[in-house]
């Protein structure tokens, strides 16, 4: 397969913590696991992130991203809004939803806004044609007509910039894992080589869950991680907190 340099560099940009969308403020419940001494070492961390990938990132966020990508490819804004709505509904903890929608809004501002400025505002998102898709999405997010979850906006941006659907899913899942590993390192006492070992061990899981869920339809989007959700909800009232979620 021939590499598209622009798409490849865009994937690196989207997967980099340098992307200013506030990813470093989200721990998706990990801070609470550490607050409650539920993670002692790298093995615990790997086990937890493995579960996140198989039960949340894969069946929920990857499905949302892949379907948002497809909606963008087909210029089907109704489908995109349905993806966003369902992702909002199946993301239980308030802070998880807030971290995702705030990052989504910032990604919109950063990477869809330039196209939006060139286009005319769209009053009704359902009227948008394929060419005005990014404009319509940015407008809908800005007006609060749709939550604008991060994986959904990510799918649109990735499609615009020439990534394949699987590349987009892999990039997103990888950045989710590195984001949480970075959070763990800042909150706990994990060595840098230990963290890289965990990342290396999770690489095959990232590949497996993305390949497993990249073709799933919207109706398959679901999340089952009750303990992570409980940690996320307890975090709202945590005695000590450095992260938004």
């Amino acid at each position, binding site marked *: 397969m021939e590499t598209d340099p622009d798409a490849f560099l865009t994937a690196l940009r989207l997967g980099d913590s340098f992307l200013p969308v506030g990813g470093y*403020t989200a721990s998706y419940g990990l801070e609470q696991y550490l607050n409650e001494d539920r993670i002692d070492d790298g093995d615990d961390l790997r086990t937890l992130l493995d579960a996140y990938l198989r039960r949340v990132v894969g069946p929920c966020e990857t499905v949302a991203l892949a379907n948002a990508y497809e909606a963008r490819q087909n210029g089907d804004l109704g489908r995109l809004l349905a993806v966003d709505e369902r992702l909002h509904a199946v993301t239980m903890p308030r802070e998880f939803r807030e971290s995702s929608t705030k990052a989504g*809004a910032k990604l919109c501002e950063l990477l869809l806004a330039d196209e939006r400025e060139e286009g005319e505002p769209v009053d009704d998102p359902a009227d948008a044609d394929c060419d005005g898709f990014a404009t319509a999405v940015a407008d809908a997010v800005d007006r609060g007509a749709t939550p604008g979850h991060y994986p959904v906006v990510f799918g649109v941006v990735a499609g615009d910039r020439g990534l394949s659907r699987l590349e987009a899913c892999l990039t997103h899942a990888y950045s989710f894992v590195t984001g949480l590993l970075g959070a763990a390192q800042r909150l706990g006492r994990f060595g840098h080589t230990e963290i890289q070992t965990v990342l290396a061990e999770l690489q095959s899981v990232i590949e497996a869950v993305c390949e497993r869920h990249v073709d799933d339809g919207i109706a398959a989007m679901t999340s089952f991680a009750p303990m992570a959700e409980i940690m996320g909800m307890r975090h709202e009232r945590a*005695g000590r907190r*450095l992260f938004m979620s």
Partner: protein
Amino acid sequence: MGYRDVAKVGLGGPVGSGKTALVKRLVPELVAEGYEVGVIANDIMTQEDADVFRESFADLLPADLVEGVETGACPHTGIREDPSMNLAAIDEFTERHPELDVVLVESGGDNLAATFNPELADYFLFVISVAEGEDIPRKRGPGVTQADLLVVNKTDLAPHVDADLEVIEADAGDVRGEDPFVFTNCKDGSGVEEVLAHVEREVLFA
């Protein structure tokens, strides 16, 4: 309305230098001058801190104009490389209070290299304390040299920590050239009026 439509003043500086004390002094003065003020504090560690912060402005500001923003143990990132969550909080302020004049953004305590992203702060105060050592200005950290206003706080402690205010003044003048610096004691409020005058002249009247 959004973050681009309101004046933003950043307050950075090391842990314990008196950033919060300065915010507590500035807010009543700004409110008395007739400004609508919002306050964002980064890295409030505990709910107790958050409650204390809101209580201190309870009679001055609407509760929804006082916000804590967590920066994931990266205080410098939150004000420099990626201020997106602070900007999102300011956007929420301006949506709820379109009449807002100014937002004070207090960074989490950081090192001498911390500076504010110019898209987050139109004006940037760097607060240091004499108790951190009289050689702080001489070290020429980016916070000390690049801030719009350097505030040297806790002057009352100078004799107790062997810090010579004349040395600090001479060094601050050397490293900052024409850029201003102010000595304050936020405990009794001395110097705060001068800080306020700089903020009004450079940000609110600009």
